[in-house]
């Protein structure tokens, strides 16, 4: 028994991390759907889910249950094995990739020296799930959706790749952890040195995740639901999970590469150290909102459990913030060698990382509420005639700038901005040519 434990010991901590990350991502996906519905609703002068739980907070659970209980329909003439396999591929691809994301300096599953390459590779496996699902359904709409999807993903992967290369030029490494550390060392997030690459990455990320305005593979008004038209119940929810996990994934990649990963904004400015207390402030605000809503709900019997839930949430948030503010000297042993607020310090990385990711996700949702959908040929033309040339120009000019700054001893940021200006010139020329 002890021998077994000894053998398993090195695997225990990674296993716990894997579990925490995967469960966390699943939970975030569930509430991302809720957030999307709520944000879209408020953009569209309506309220969104309000019934299940206070402000519909339990809606994701109800949705999940509903999906799980639905009948798993197999279309006649479908290729059974492939049909069952396809959504699983998508989910596995989306979730495996998270093992390479550094959420905090001390919290990541693994870090390999070709991390970014693996990340792209694994996430590109997700295409297989879409294309096989579309083919196996034995139906025209999914097939068209799958064809669109493949062409779109493959095309925008090129632009995405070049945008990533621009960041790699600055970091000089493929390891995700080292990329963030490079930004820490250079004292500037790469978004300020490579705005064009960041923009291209953002647009390509939207295309890669099939989100509006590039949501052609599942364009509701044209292809009903695209590649997952024939899927229902549990298997549909797998695709759903994969899609939203992929959104979080590309946001995480963008945050790691361009927005400084786990770094706090202005990490070097000591005068802004009070920003370290932002998690506490957020929690206290959330608690205050919970209490206010609790009193705004009608004090009748039928709302009782909803008010209790709000009260519980508020108290919980306050409790967590109190725990975060637990000073080190109250800990057993006096907290020797620990920072002043150990819990607060421990969650800093994850907090800032996830905040930036949420910023991205909000952008995704905002776009969905704003833009019409591109047509397929326009999407392709945008990708090949605009995004890819600009991305290549950016790589060329920025590598030139880096070489120049090394040779001539010019300041790196200024030279890079020069390169960016040249790229923008190319972009303007391309646009004019098109018009």
């Amino acid at each position: 028994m002890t021998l077994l434990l000894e053998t398993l010991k090195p695997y225990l901590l990674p296993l716990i991390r894997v579990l925490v990350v995967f469960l966390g991502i699943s939970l975030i996906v569930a509430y991302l759907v809720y957030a999307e519905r709520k944000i879209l609703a408020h953009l569209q002068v309506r309220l969104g889910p309000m019934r299940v739980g206070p402000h519909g907070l339990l809606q994701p659970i109800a949705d999940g249950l509903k999906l799980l209980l639905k009948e798993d329909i197999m279309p006649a003439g479908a290729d059974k094995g492939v049909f069952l396999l396809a959504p699983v591929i998508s989910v596995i691809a989306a979730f495996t990739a998270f093992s390479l994301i550094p959420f905090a300096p001390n919290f990541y599953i693994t870090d390999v020296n070709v991390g970014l390459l693996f990340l792209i590779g694994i996430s590109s496996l997700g295409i297989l799930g879409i294309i096989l699902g579309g083919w196996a359904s034995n139906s025209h709409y999914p097939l068209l959706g799958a064809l669109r999807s493949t062409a779109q993903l493959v095309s925008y992967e090129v632009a995405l790749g070049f945008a990533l290369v621009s960041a790699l030029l600055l970091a000089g490494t493929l390891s995700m952890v080292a990329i963030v550390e490079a930004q820490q060392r250079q004292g500037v997030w790469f978004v300020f040195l490579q705005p064009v690459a960041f923009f291209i990455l953002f647009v390509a990320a939207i295309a890669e995740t099939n989100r509006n305005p590039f949501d052609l593979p599942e364009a509701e008004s044209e292809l009903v639901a695209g590649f997952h038209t024939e899927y229902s119940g549990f298997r549909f929810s797998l695709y759903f999970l994969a899609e939203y996990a992929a959104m979080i994934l590309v946001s995480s990649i963008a945050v790691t590469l361009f927005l400084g990963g786990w770094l706090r904004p202005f990490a070097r400015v000591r005068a802004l150290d009070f920003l370290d207390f932002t998690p506490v402030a957020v929690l206290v605000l959330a608690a205050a909102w919970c209490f206010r809503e609790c009193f705004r709900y009608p004090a009748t019997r039928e709302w009782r459990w909803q008010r209790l839930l709000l009260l519980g949430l508020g108290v919980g948030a306050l409790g967590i913030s109190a725990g975060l503010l637990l000073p080190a000297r109250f800990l057993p042993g006096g907290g020797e060698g620990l920072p002043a607020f150990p819990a607060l310090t421990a969650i800093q990385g994850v907090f800032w990382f996830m905040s930036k990711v949420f910023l991205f996700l909000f952008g995704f949702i905002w776009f969905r509420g704003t833009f019409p959908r591109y047509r397929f040929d326009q999407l392709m033309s945008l990708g090949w005639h605009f995004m890819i040339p600009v991305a290549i120009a950016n790589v060329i000019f920025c590598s030139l700038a880096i070489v120049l700054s090394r040779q001539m001893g010019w300041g790196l940021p200024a030279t890079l901005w020069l390169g960016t200006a040249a790229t923008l010139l190319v972009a303007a020329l391309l646009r004019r040519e098109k018009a």
Partner: protein
Amino acid sequence: MAQPQDISTTVLGADEIILNMGPQHPATHGVLRVKLKLDGEKVIGSECIIGYLHRGVEKIGENRSYPQFAPYVDRTDYVAAVSNGLGYCEAVERLLGVEAPPRARWVRTILTELQRIASHLLWLGTHALDIGAITPVFYTFREREEILKIFEKYCGARLTTHAFRIGGLQYETYDGFEEDVKKFCRDFEEKVDEYGELLTENRIWVERTRNVGILTAQDAIDLGVTGPVLRGSGVRWDIRKAFPYAAYAQFEFDIPIGERGDTYDRYLVRMEEMRQARRIILQAVDSIPEGPILARVGKVIKPPPGEVYHSIEAPKGELGYYIVSDGTIQPYRLRIRPPSFINLEAFDKMVRGHLVADVVAIIGTLDIVLGEVDR
């Protein structure tokens, strides 16, 4: 002119597939079924299959007395019930040889123009939804709701209003009718600009609608399309100006026309029509004359033998009623010229050579209502 061929019998090439769109599809505006012959994603042939909502309205008309049939016309173009009612009532009035009193005509004009705005709002929201902008539909429904509230206060119904009676109006306007209409018009001006902000200048919107579904003026006339679809092709033809009915002769308004006859032009035409409708309403509501609301038509409506064709400019185009009377209380034959049905004829001409995504844009821009197509 190319005849729509029966595409299901043609031999398919290597890259060609037949795609069945509808009758249950999110973007066919009801139960239109379109068979598309695709080369990859390019449409090389199409065939519309209609009739899923056929209720035999015209035949029913032969078995109902004139007033009894009036509620049925509400249910043809069910998003513009007021306009349908106006057309029918005026047709029967012409058959009878009576004219509605001025007050009734003024109120009729106001309500029909409100209905035009409501119908265009519904079109705008769903059209944008088809093209992938999911937000405008909620904004347009917000304004449409205000119009429906006015209808509800006026006659008690929101959708199938049955607002008019043969010979005039059944109900006097309620207290505060003018204020409600004016308030709506005041609010609506900036709202319609708001939709413009969301779409008119939007790159993606312009790219999706420009040069899509071009219908030249000659083709439009040959196919007999009417309404905004015809005007979008640059033909200045509007029955409100050509054969004024109700009280339109009294008011100033412009007829917007397009230049290229593409989907974007039709969009602009309809947007401008909403502004013009507002203009008409504002003129009318300030000058509603006093007086009776119902002409003397007698308790039993029994037109003399004869026939009449009367048409109005409904939101979707020329809505005509052809009624043959044999002197009894029921029409001998009643025929509705539905604008949606005839505009749908242009569909095949417009979609050829476009992509699947354009098909939904073109269905949207034709602004069809299947209740009216199938009757």
